[in-house]
């Protein structure tokens, strides 16, 4: 395979193995941050839409993408950033929701809030499924998550906030 030109399909396959460092059950593709991939004889172009402005993982993700594609045989990797449209949890697939749940993180409930509507959530517990849960803190270990607790099984859990 030496000197073979990497196709877009191969590039997507390589990217499917690049995990988010903070939520290691989701790949960067499942998270929806890889927006576009194009490949030609000179290399691979990847367009990334960052999640939160304050997400410290953004730089790590960029270098992981680069590394994965070079390892898979890309001649050169160019990663660029696209801000608009802004990243939204609406881009998470149903499969991604299921993976989050299995990992003990409640997936976002409903679409991202718009306008000035009040944002109050009561996500069901990802462990026992109970709807009797309460919020402990609006921000969890990362900006994208909040900390909740199940009133029935008493387990604390993280909630992936819709944005």
């Amino acid at each position, binding site marked *: 395979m030496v000197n073979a030109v990497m196709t877009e399909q191969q590039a997507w396959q390589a990217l499917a193995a690049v995990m988010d460092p903070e939520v290691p059950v989701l790949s960067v593709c499942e998270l929806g941050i890889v927006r576009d991939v194009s490949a030609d004889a000179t290399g691979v172009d990847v367009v990334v839409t960052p999640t939160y402005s*304050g997400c410290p993982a953004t730089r790590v993700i960029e270098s992981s993408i680069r590394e994965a594609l070079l390892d898979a045989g890309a001649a050169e990797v160019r990663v660029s950033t696209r*801000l608009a*449209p802004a*990243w939204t949890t609406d881009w998470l697939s149903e499969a991604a929701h299921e993976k989050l749940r299995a990992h003990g993180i409640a997936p976002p409930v409903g679409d991202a809030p718009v306008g000035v509507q009040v944002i109050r959530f009561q996500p069901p517990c990802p462990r026992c499924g109970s709807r009797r849960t309460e919020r402990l803190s*609006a*921000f969890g270990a990362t900006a994208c998550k909040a900390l909740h607790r199940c009133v029935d099984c008493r387990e604390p859990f993280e909630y992936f*906030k819709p944005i």
Partner: protein
Amino acid sequence: MMTPHVEYVLRIADSSLILGQRLSELCGHGPVLEEDIAITNIALDCIGQARLLLTHAGKLEGAGRDEDQLAFLRNEGEFRNVTLTELPNGDFGRVVLRNFLFSSFLEQLWAGLAASADTELAAIAAKSAKETRYHREHSADWVVRLGDGTDESHGRMAQALSALWPYMAECFAADGVDDAVAASGIGVAWSTLEAGWRQAVGPVLAEATLEPPPDTPFRSRGRCGVHSEHLGHLLAVMQHLQRSHPGARW
């Protein structure tokens, strides 16, 4: 001379950066672990927004300055943040009250900038609006909880409100830079955001049983580069490493 366009973007960038730096002072010093983490997360968002805006301002300026040069190598008088953001934190009540007053303003501003003729600025605003909504909700919850809390917490919140409220007037003062960018469709004049801001903060303050003090003629002028005595000290901490070891990287 900076164009009004650069100046306008810098005002927003610097306000986010300086507020982010202030909030980061609570990292490891929050009153409880959850709030330590929440405030630090908000600080990271503010700094992240500032990075995008500073990078953009540097490109508009066209003098080859990047986000780091703008953040770490400008002197006090070159910063364009509103004075409110550079005031010392004070107690936790004052921290969340400032966040509430200023994120309520930012929410109006981001909404106004979504239609900017500067598409990069519009993109940054649309993205930031989503984050600011969570910052505002977090601080509004605390304003109500502390304002409508014990005698002690209510008293502190009332004191914080009378100290911080006058600094918000700067955000809504008539201004030449604003007029210029509004005329060219690049920005929204901040003075036009006051009515929406008052509508947004009023009900929360009422629920918190807090009453704003009467308006006064006092106008801070941080966004014109005239700062309080506090900014220099903040910059000394923030810029120390790059000033002592120019170009240091890790």
